[in-house]
């Protein structure tokens, strides 16, 4: 058998850099250390995308020209997706949006963008996954189920490993706490520290916990043993290095009063030493937020107007699909699979360009499809891990096709 290549996995935003891949004749022969999601990413999709215009196969150059014509003609184009692209492709996409005076948004718009915004702007303290592995003694999975979303999270960083200050690992040195509406797979490890809350009840539970931390009697509007909240508060107070892993269960529940997160972290840090890490899903979702922030000061939902870049809910992908965009270019995403159908069905009524390695649901309604190499497999670059650490992504194999960055830059040349 050939020598393995050490590879950084782009199956999720954990970006595990210890994957061993055996390649023979430019094909993946065997994969070691990867989880099920990582393996699926390495072996790739069964149906690759074709270069098409109006659902008919064309030369890729024709497809790129047609895409440029659609975007040039549009008065209010939307460039959307980007979370499965390298940072280099994202930067090219931001440049294209500036050139077109377009709106640009990513999947973070309805995912962890709101949390990442708080961290980038310094309102919530965060740390690296290496800090978690070496130092964390209390880990809280709040509305998060990494065993189902980021399968190697617990084994590589947050619970099972020995760390510099946690030589006895999960058996003695780490306490796992799970706060959720259901006893998830992750909650099974929390040994009596699972807290079942009502759907949408995260803010109320957080306030009760803050009461507990401050020595007041916690109050809840439903029947809950307040002694358990006081016990939880005591555990959090004693933590030497604590981490909250914020999942979408928490984010969606408190999105309307998100300042509560920083208030909670401030309260917690009056007594102990806590950090928060967002459970971003796609491998470079956070990269898009950092790259756009660097260029515009905003992390997502940006419109490049005559007066400069502006960010508001009006420029979010869902609002643009409902009332704004008159042409859409999707890069590395499948909005028909991931957005409410009541919103995404509008993609059938407006000119739609899809840049993606795979045939997906959105391919079925795209006016132009341009196949690109798979980021992290056939295309290299950089990405930002869910904790904000920049990572190099090396391609596993060489292919003749175009990367998404090259496609975006070719379109830019044609519209400039």
């Amino acid at each position: 058998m050939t020598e393995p290549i050490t590879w950084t996995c782009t199956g999720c935003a954990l970006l595990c850099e210890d994957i061993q891949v055996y390649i023979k004749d430019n094909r993946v022969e065997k994969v070691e250390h990867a989880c099920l999601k990582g393996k699926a990413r390495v072996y790739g999709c069964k149906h690759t995308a074709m270069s098409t215009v109006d659902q008919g196969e064309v030369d890729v150059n024709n497809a790129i020209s047609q895409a440029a014509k659609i975007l040039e003609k549009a008065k209010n184009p939307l460039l959307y997706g980007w979370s499965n692209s390298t940072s280099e492709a994202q930067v090219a996409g931001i440049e294209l949006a500036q050139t077109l005076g377009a709106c640009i948004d990513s999947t973070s718009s309805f995912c962890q963008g709101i949390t990442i915004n708080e961290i980038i702007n310094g309102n919530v303290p965060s740390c690296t996954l290496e800090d978690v592995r070496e130092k964390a003694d209390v880990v809280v999975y709040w509305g998060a189920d990494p065993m189902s979303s980021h399968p190697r999270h617990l084994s590589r960083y947050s619970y099972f490993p020995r760390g510099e200050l946690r030589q006895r690992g999960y058996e003695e040195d780490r306490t796992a706490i799970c706060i959720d509406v259901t006893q998830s797979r992750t909650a099974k490890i929390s040994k009596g520290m699972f807290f079942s809350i009502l759907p949408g009840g995260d803010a109320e539970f957080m306030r009760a916990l803050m009461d507990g931390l401050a020595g007041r009697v916690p109050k809840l509007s439903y029947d809950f043993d307040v002694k358990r909240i006081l016990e939880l508060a005591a555990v959090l107070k004693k933590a030497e290095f604590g981490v909250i892993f914020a999942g979408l269960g928490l984010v969606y529940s408190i999105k309307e009063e998100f300042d509560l997160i920083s208030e909670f972290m401030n309260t917690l840090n009056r007594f102990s030493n806590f950090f928060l890490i967002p459970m971003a899903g796609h491998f470079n979702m956070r990269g898009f937020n950092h790259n756009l922030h660097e260029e515009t000061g905003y992390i997502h939902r940006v419109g490049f107007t005559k007066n400069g870049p502006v960010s508001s809910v009006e420029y979010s992908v869902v609002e643009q699909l409902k009332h704004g965009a008159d042409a859409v270019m999707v890069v590395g995403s499948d909005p028909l699979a991931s957005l409410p159908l009541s919103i995404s069905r509008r993609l059938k009524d407006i000119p739609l360009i899809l840049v993606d390695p795979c045939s997906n649901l959105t391919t079925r309604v795209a006016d132009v499809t341009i196949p690109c190499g798979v980021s992290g497999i056939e295309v290299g670059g950089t990405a930002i891990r869910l904790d904000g650490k920049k990572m190099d992504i090396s391609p596993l194999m060489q292919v003749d096709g175009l990367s998404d960055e090259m496609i975006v830059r070719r379109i830019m040349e044609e519209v400039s």
Partner: protein
Amino acid sequence: MALDVSKFIKAPEYDIKIITRRDVFQASACEEDRFSDECMELSALIVLDAAEMKRMGIQEGINVRLTSKWGSVVVRARVSPREEQKGLGFMINGLWVNALVPDETPDGIPAFKDIKAKITISKDKITGIQELLLL
């Protein structure tokens, strides 16, 4: 010949709140092929509390129709391996649950974890991709 009256009797409907979540098996199956039977089988299902299923007369593995203001789908009912809160159902993120998600997004974030729907036993087949996309 005796008349089968059961087909004229409407199955009872129950209110349910649907919460989406992730699943590694579904994610990897759909990464490989979004049009595969495996992706559909792992996406087109709702997980319910055992006692709730009994109350609603829903057996493990039968088809149920979920209807919200925004759409209607037929999926398979599965019993949760643990006790769940009353009135909740869990679906994996994907096309089927997205047919039910409200289009109201005042803050730009759809209510993926707060979907109010009706559930009823159905004799229909699991809703297909073509039907959902209205192609």
